[in-house]
């Protein structure tokens, strides 16, 4: 069985034996690309352009053949299996074999989060919460975190959003289940990724308050205020200040969080105008990309002064 971990630094093993050079070497990266695009065979021209776009088409295709050969060598040297057990290879295209025996962490991660997409954190049931716990346990770091190739960026961000969304759902789930300490641990994980998320600070203040630890809730506010001042040069929002005032007045903590929007950013609950804005931004991004390509072309024609 081929086991691939693409979260964090990345690791692959075949029959329990680690594949050397994965994912740093180009053969390993080719396998990663095919795994990220599993279910779709990739024309050889596209693969050649993605990995060796700076070379001529014939040279790029030669490099692709070499990388494929190295990958085959690696597989056969490890378990005497054939690369075609894992890849569909033809003269025109290459793709990951959907029938191959494999386990892929990002696939398991997405499978575990799939059943919770439309459910706000406070309304998760125990099974859904357990699935989300399994998912975040698989997230050992951003996708292929030491590889900065363009083809990794979109998937890295998409999975990171899914991870943050899952942590946030669990924060609110544990809050409503009267287990705030577990919610707080998940909040810290979000703040480790981005300490300036004011809403997460507010939710942590609520969780400390629920726990009966008012001084920790007030300290969380001060931490939030300091981070916002350092990172953005702004004060906390009015709603954060109101929450701080309520905790100071020793009022009773509400049993549920009023602002439970912990589903991932793009879901059926996103207002139609926000979706329209997103689509129009996507069109704008496409236009900018084509402008940038045109600029690149001009730069290649005319060297800088």
């Amino acid at each position, binding site marked *: 069985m081929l086991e691939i971990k693409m979260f964090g630094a990345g690791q692959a093993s075949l029959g329990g034996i680690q594949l050397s050079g994965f994912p740093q070497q180009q053969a390993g990266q080719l396998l990663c690309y095919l795994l990220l695009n599993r279910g779709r065979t990739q024309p050889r021209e596209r693969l050649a352009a993605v990995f060796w776009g700076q070379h001529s088409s014939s040279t790029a295709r030669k490099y692709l053949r070499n990388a494929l050969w190295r990958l085959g060598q690696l597989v056969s040297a490890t378990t005497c299996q054939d690369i075609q057990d894992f890849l569909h290879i033809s003269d025109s295209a290459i793709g990951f074999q959907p029938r191959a025996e494999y386990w892929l962490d990002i696939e398991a991660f997405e499978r575990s989060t799939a059943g919770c997409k439309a459910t706000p954190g406070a309304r998760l049931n125990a099974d859904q919460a357990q699935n989300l716990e399994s998912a975040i346990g698989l997230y050992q770091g951003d996708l292929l975190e030491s590889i*900065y190739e*363009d083809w990794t*960026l979109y998937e890295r*961000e998409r999975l990171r959003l899914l991870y943050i969304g899952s942590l946030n759902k669990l924060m609110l789930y544990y809050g409503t289940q009267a287990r705030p300490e577990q919610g707080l641990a998940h909040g810290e994980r979000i703040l480790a990724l*981005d300490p*300036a*998320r*004011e*809403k997460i600070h507010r939710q942590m203040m609520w969780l400390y308050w629920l726990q009966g630890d008012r001084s920790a809730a007030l300290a969380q506010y001060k931490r939030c205020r300091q981070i916002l001042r350092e*990172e*953005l040069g*702004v004060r906390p*929002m*009015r*709603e954060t200040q109101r929450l701080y005032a309520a905790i100071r007045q020793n009022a009773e903590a509400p049993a549920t969080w*009023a*602002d439970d*929007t912990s589903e991932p*950013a793009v879901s059926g609950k996103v207002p139609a105008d926000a979706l329209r*804005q997103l689509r*129009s*931004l996507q069109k*704008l991004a496409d236009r*900018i990309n084509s*402008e*940038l390509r045109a*600029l*690149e072309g*001009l*730069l290649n024609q*005319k060297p*800088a*002064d």
Partner: protein
Amino acid sequence: MKPEATSFIIRIWIDSAAENSEPPIWRGVIEQVGSTEKRHFQELQTVTQFIRERADLDLPPTLRERWQSLWLSLTHEIRKRLPIRR
């Protein structure tokens, strides 16, 4: 030798409550791919400044004009779509 290209990731989010009657506040962070450099922002100007500081584009005058006009249209379009402070 200068790299031929560099990439940036911009993440934006709303930090105010969904049921709040006040206009939502968008915030974000921009980071340069492959480095630890990042900057939070609540104003679009910060994004442009961050990229300019790092991209350090040494372009011939005609291309520089085109680049600047691309930036202007980009920030204009984003301002139209997102209520990020100018």
